[in-house]
């Protein structure tokens, strides 16, 4: 086992410290102040206003602005008129939202095709650790779920979308269970429901800390069992439209061998997920390799409006050290089970189960005040201390395994953590049927914005990918019956004068140039 050097003096201080006092309470006004001062969403640095498209004038992270205003990456001589394939519903994205939508559309009678950038299931869904919210516990109901999410989201939520989300949650849990997701149960066989940050009732269902994996395993197995065709390693790089602006298909790029496949569809569903691998503001990320905001960029270029495009979630407990795991996640579930955040002096400084943006801001404030632990490679972090939490290795095998592989035993050693770019709160503007501003184009999952306002609560992302995937898949299948196959053109590009880099980028560019190392 490779043991990586630690900031040993600080660790010794912590190990010698007494158990900490309870953290100071934070009233609502102080929480807002913290978030406004320290959360990256509220800092003007590294942002610029969009100069093109429906959200012109709104500031977003500069890297995202460049790509939203990017040039198409298809060859200029590509002829869109003759599609290689036709289907009723084209689903772009093979994560939780895309697979759910495809399965639902297929079962509703649509001839469906899934195109995905990497392998089927490679997504943020599969690595989700913490759980899924559903108001099932005694004393809970969808109204409490709604109120919690609104408060967590700073009341910026689209309440109609949020209502649909929380109302669908119990049935979503049952649907996933019937597909074979094995929810955690206690010894008496009752569903286990836990608290997450910002929940007023215990509402998180989980499969240890492999919740997303268990969900994705069931969804992909069911999709394969249903015989829905899937094209892997074929990301969408442009939408196809007719002359009236209706979306009629997409151009897929063969990621491994080059070349393009044109798909004509009566309905297109974007389910391409988030954008963490753009490393906005230079942030580390917890996201999967392909999370580069592709669908967001394609939708914007074709004329869709975005909601809260500046709003991203920084998960408070990304691993900050060792560098090999930088940005990787330690699920909020560990804090839910009782783990503490402690500063350089061993003190707790914030209620660990406040909403994520508040905890992340409090952590950054603590570091700014000189109470963080200086990292050997620069930057600061705080300790996540779970030594007093019983059964950490059994309850959190994913976290425990990834730490043990770098020589850290969570049962005996605190871990240095700092905020990591985790989730796109905003996204493509949609209604409850996933309808975007463009006819023929729907969206579901992390690519969409609105339901979470400007800060999502733990467990509402897994809920959203499945709940919206079902609703949008059904709506697309119905709409496809009433639509014809439209003409496939690149008409929307005639009016696009984006001068940024070719976009989407598809994958992060981590390969060092010769001599760089």
């Amino acid at each position, binding site marked *: 086992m490779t043991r990586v050097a630690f900031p040993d003096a600080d660790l010794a201080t912590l190990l010698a410290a007494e158990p900490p006092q309870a953290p100071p309470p934070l009233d*609502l006004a102080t929480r807002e102040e913290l978030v406004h001062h320290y959360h990256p969403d509220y800092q003007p640095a590294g942002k610029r206003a969009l100069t093109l498209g429906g959200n012109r004038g709104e500031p977003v992270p500069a890297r995202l602005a460049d790509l939203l205003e990017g040039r198409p990456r298809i060859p200029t001589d590509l002829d869109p008129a003759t599609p290689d394939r036709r289907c009723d519903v084209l689903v772009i994205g093979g994560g939780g939202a895309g697979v759910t939508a495809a399965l639902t559309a297929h079962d509703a009678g649509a001839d469906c095709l899934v195109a995905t950038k990497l392998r089927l299931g490679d997504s943020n869904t599969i*690595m989700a650790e913490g759980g899924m919210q559903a108001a099932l516990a005694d004393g809970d109901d969808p109204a409490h779920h709604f109120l919690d999410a609104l408060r967590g989201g700073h009341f910026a939520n689209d309440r109609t979308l949020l209502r649909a989300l929380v109302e669908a949650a119990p049935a979503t849990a*049952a649907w996933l*269970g019937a597909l074979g997701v*094995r929810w955690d149960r206690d010894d008496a066989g009752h569903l286990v429901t836990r608290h997450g940050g910002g929940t007023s009732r215990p509402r998180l269902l989980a499969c240890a800390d*492999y919740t997303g994996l268990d969900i994705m395993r069931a969804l992909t197995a069911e999709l394969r*069992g249903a015989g829905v065709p899937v094209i892997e390693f074929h990301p969408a790089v442009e939408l196809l439209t007719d002359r009236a602006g209706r979306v009629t298909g997409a151009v897929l790029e063969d990621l491994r061998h080059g070349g393009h496949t044109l798909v004509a569809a009566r309905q297109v569903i974007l389910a391409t997920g988030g954008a963490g691998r753009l490393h906005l503001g230079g942030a580390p990320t917890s996201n999967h390799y392909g999370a580069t905001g592709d669908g967001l960029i394609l939708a914007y270029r074709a004329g869709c409006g975005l909601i809260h495009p500046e709003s991203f979630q920084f998960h408070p407990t990304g691993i900050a050290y060792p560098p090999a795991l930088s940005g*990787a996640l330690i699920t909020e579930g560990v804090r839910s089970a009782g783990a503490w955040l402690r500063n350089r002096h061993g003190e707790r400084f914030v209620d660990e189960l406040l909403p994520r943006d508040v905890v992340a801001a409090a952590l950054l404030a603590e570091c700014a005040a000189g109470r963080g632990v200086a990292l050997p490679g620069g930057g600061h972090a705080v300790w996540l201390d779970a030594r007093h939490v019983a059964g950490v290795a059994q309850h959190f095998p994913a976290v425990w395994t*990834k730490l043990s592989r770098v020589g850290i035993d969570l049962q005996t050693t605190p871990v240095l953590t700092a905020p990591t770019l985790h989730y796109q709160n905003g996204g493509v503007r949609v209604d409850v049927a996933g309808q975007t501003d463009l006819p023929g184009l729907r969206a579901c999952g992390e690519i969409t914005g609105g339901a979470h306002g400007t800060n999502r609560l733990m467990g509402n992302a897994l809920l959203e990918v499945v709940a919206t995937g079902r609703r949008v898949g059904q709506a697309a299948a119905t709409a496809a019956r009433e639509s014809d196959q439209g003409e496939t053109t690149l008409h929307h590009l005639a009016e696009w004068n984006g001068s940024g880099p070719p976009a989407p980028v598809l994958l992060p560019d*981590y390969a060092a140039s010769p001599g760089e190392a």
Partner: protein
Amino acid sequence: MNEPVTIHFRGETITAHRGETLLQALWNSGHHLIDHVGCLGGACGACSGTFTDPATGEPRSALACQLMVRDGLHFRFTTLTELPAPTYRSDALRPDLAGLLACHPETVRCRSCEACTLVCPQQIDVMGAVLAAIQGRLAATAEHGLSCVSCGLCMVVCEVGIAPQLVMAFARRSVGAAETAADPTLAARPPLPEARWAELLAATPEALLAEGEE
């Protein structure tokens, strides 16, 4: 920069640095990767591979996103695409041996050679999972299968044609589905009254905050 170490990949000798994962070492030495990277969090199996342990000379397996480099390491990806997949829907998920054999009849051929367990990058007792399934103890198989990333290495080394990742998935799914079907907590629930939603949709933030303080 940490201490340099030498690793071997696709016939190349690469200078890496202690503290890097295998994937980071490949990126830092100029390799652009497409097929062999997925979640980067140890959950998807895209970066599975085998390596020769420099200390013992023994072949081992790992996920490259979580394998720390060491001097003398030889690594090769074993990423599988187009893995065999279930051909049945969730209505076939019966949590007993007959249900399993209807979908995966080859399971009974297991000869207890243990190759699957030895090759698992997640250190799952794969053979134990298969044997438990053959004994009809699907709940035990389901427990083993929790951390399976479906890399398929166990299937590749199985001499009798079992795909243990599918057996474990069947077990998890069938047990989960049976538990769900038996659970009144997951039965359909009446909706909240429309009047309540009308209030919630229209109320000011101040009013909703006050309600949260109840």
